[in-house]
């Protein structure tokens, strides 16, 4: 149990070679993952997830509303697995993972031209470079930046 907790806390920690991860809830994958990468719940603090999940009717310019039961279920799972440590220290602007200080710092060496590549298109397109991000794996050794 203690090991499991430490495992969870180390989630996307710097320099860890085997980025431990929370298994993604199948419904989270199918609902949220239908439109965008299934972002690991640990990348935003609970307050941010709560705001996002209560405003799905206007979700970054689109209607992402869910039926009440699914909304409740996913909100509870996100709250339970929300970010801790440095991932909870800050509520990024607009609740965007890509605006978080840790995200910007982690990506500071990526040139501006790379972000604009058709294969990248958006900073939220994790899979463009993090080849196993669909499994919650953001290990730096798995990064392949397109040219």
């Amino acid at each position: 149990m203690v090991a499991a907790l430490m495992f969870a806390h180390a989630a996307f920690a710097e320099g860890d070679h085997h980025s431990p991860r929370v298994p993604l809830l199948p419904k989270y994958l199918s609902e949220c993952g239908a439109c965008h990468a299934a972002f690991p719940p640990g990348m935003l603090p609970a307050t941010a997830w709560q705001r996002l999940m209560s405003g799905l009717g206007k979700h970054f310019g689109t209607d992402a509303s869910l039926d009440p039961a699914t909304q409740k279920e996913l909100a509870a799972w996100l709250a339970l697995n929300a970010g801790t440590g440095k991932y909870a220290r800050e509520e990024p602007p607009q609740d965007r993972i890509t605006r978080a200080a840790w995200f910007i710092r982690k990506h500071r060496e990526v040139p501006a031209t790379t972000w604009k590549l058709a294969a990248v298109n958006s900073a939220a397109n994790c899979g463009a470079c993090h080849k196993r991000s669909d499994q919650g794996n953001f290990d730096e050794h798995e990064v392949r930046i397109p040219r």
Partner: protein
Amino acid sequence: MHTLSLSRFSLRSIAAAAGLSALIIADIAQAATPAELLSGYTAQAGSAAASNRGQQFFTSRHGREWSCATCHGTVPTQAGKHASTGKPIQALAPAFNPERFTDPAKTEKWFRRNCNDVVGRECSAAEKADVLAWLLTLKP
């Protein structure tokens, strides 16, 4: 000992089979064909669907930034791309993607959201019938 484990095994298979058939029955309860959904929308609309109107609706903008075609493609027989995230969207025409329009709740969910994004309101049953009628004309 041998017979005991054997009977335990068969009990387990019976239980598994029962569970499986329960699942299949649950699936059947929700499943529909695109043609059934079309006749449902047509009945709700109280008039016949027109595929040419559906195509027009699908490919036009309705006073907003996106049309249906923006994400699904002008002829949705192959994968499209989410306009803001770039995430691939599998083909929408049922003849090219047998999963499409087989789950009434899922169909309604996406009509609700996407009509809100494209038209700024929910679509009428007649509009849904027209679009679905057009999608069903698209064949390999």
